[in-house]
């Protein structure tokens, strides 16, 4: 038996140390303020922001949400205030938080991504970048980047070199690449990101899905298809993390369908060093903290004192 106060929950992502392995997933937690009244954001392992793009984006037409069996579809379309408004309106609050903040970066072209990473390099208070090459809900960029290994490697290489040239500590911020499960061989894409110099990978983004309203005889989502998330995708995410964490040497952050500690532990056993909770926050905002509690309990029960050693139990 291990004592709770002796548990080492910290996780290393490149040069960044996360205080614990449970973060909140991009797009499900806004920019931190929205959920602050409902759970203590400071106790999170990491906060991954909603995607930030170069220009402001209004997002896709409504409806943008649909219910599915044990899951949901979204087609938000990267709605966000844009890089500059992010810096002036969102970053000040984020800087006050006690948890690492990782900015999810998206774009339509390589230049878009590059300009955002470059600009954010001169702002402090950020823990790292999560490069979203896997959003299924935009016409250009997004997932298109995430399916071609050569493109992935080139983009990542470019972003890493921009990061390297940033002033001070910003030059050591980890570049995390977020992968799409909508590919034939995710191992290839993972290795391309690693070859490009990524410090870590996040798996998985949403699956492509569609719901049709049979009364109105049209897709529920205005855009037709959307991204499937929630418990329904849990086994897909676990299989991906199991595969990817064996295909690369860099750390893998697991997400997709986590709604309780047992789900998170599946990811950690499968090979993830950390996890993110997304959709489950909508159902139950306290989920991330409950997940963390359950991971602690597991470590005590199993006599594992370092969270990074959980994967060795499999």
């Amino acid at each position, binding site marked *: 038996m291990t004592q709770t106060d002796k548990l080492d929950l910290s996780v290393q992502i490149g040069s960044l140390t996360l205080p614990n392995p449970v973060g909140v997933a991009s*797009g*499900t*937690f*806004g920019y931190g303020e*929205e*959920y602050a*009244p*409902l759970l203590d954001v400071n106790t999170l392992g990491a906060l991954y922001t*909603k995607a930030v793009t170069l220009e402001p984006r*209004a*997002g896709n*037409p*409504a*409806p*943008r*949400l*649909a*219910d*599915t*069996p*044990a*899951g*949901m579809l*979204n087609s*938000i379309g990267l*709605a*966000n205030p844009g890089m500059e408004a992010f810096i002036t309106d969102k970053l000040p609050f984020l800087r006050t938080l006690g948890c690492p903040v990782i900015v999810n970066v998206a774009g339509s072209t390589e230049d878009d991504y590059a300009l955002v990473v470059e600009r954010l390099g001169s702002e402090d208070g950020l823990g790292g970048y999560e490069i979203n090459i896997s959003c299924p809900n935009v016409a250009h960029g997004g997932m298109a980047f995430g399916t071609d290994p050569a493109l992935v490697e080139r983009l990542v290489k470019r972003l890493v070199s921009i990061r390297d040239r940033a002033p001070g500590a910003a030059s050591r911020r980890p570049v995390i690449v977020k992968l799409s499960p909508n590919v034939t061989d995710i191992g290839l894409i993972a290795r391309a990101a690693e070859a490009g110099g990524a410090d870590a990978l996040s798996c998985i983004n949403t699956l492509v899905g569609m719901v049709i309203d049979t009364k109105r005889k049209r897709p529920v989502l205005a855009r037709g298809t959307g991204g499937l998330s*929630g*418990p329904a995708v849990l086994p897909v995410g676990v299989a991906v993390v199991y595969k990817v964490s064996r295909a690369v040497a860099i750390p893998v952050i697991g997400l997709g369908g986590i*709604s*309780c500690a047992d789900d998170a532990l599946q990811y950690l056993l499968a090979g993830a060093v950390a996890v993110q909770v997304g*959709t489950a*926050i*909508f*159902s*139950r*905002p*306290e989920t991330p903290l409950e997940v963390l509690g359950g991971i602690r309990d597991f470590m005590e029960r199993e006599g594992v004192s370092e969270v990074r050693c959980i994967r060795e139990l499999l």
Partner: protein
Amino acid sequence: MKRFDARITALRSVATGYRELRYEWPADLPPPSPGRFFTVRAGGRYDPVLRRPFAFSAWSPGGAGEPAEASFIFQVRGRGTRYLAELDTGDTIDVLGPLGTGFGKPRRGSRPVLVAGGIGLGPMLYLANALSIDARDGLCEAPVLALGFRTASLIPDVAMPEGTVICTDDGSAGYRGTVTGWLEGYDPGAPPYLYACGPSAMMAAVGAMAAARRAPYEAALEQWMACGVGACAGCAVRLRTGQYIKACVDGPVYDGNLVDWGAML
């Protein structure tokens, strides 16, 4: 705003397919104002994933050892509301609220005209009751609540404020015709201040009248929601300006004269 497990204090059928549910309101939360809403987990651990939003239909302060109570009226539509309909007094529901921005106050001297159909009943009842008090205090003219139903048997068994107008499509009770038909011929006797909640077609028709009469119009919209707190941008509503705003925090009550009714239908 808080997430809490609330004890159900009453659940009853108020009309065919409609229920009223009352639950205990936590002592540390302020009373919700009319037009605001809450979300509830309506099912098991997984399914449905999305919480269901409902508008408050009443709130009572309790006292003398009795807890405060919030109420809502809901229509049984799909699996979420079926789940709620099958609960019993004493069961708990998982509530997140109060959420959103409620109705604004009518201009002094104006006549609040409240139009509701279907699931719009609850919030409009709550608002009508609140405005009746305001009218007594001289803050506005006495409100008029106009409710539309297909037929008399769908009229809910709930206390309605004085001066409520009932419209039925088949004329089986009150005015024969739609509530917007009634509104067309209605003379408010003072500058009207319009409020509406109900089917999109009704809301859009009221919107056309508001525009024609240049009347203020507050419209409570129904929109799919995921987080309910402004974090996901899932509930975006398009304004005439092309701008999207969030139904869950900026709404669910909007300036009806800015809503792009075409995009809503």
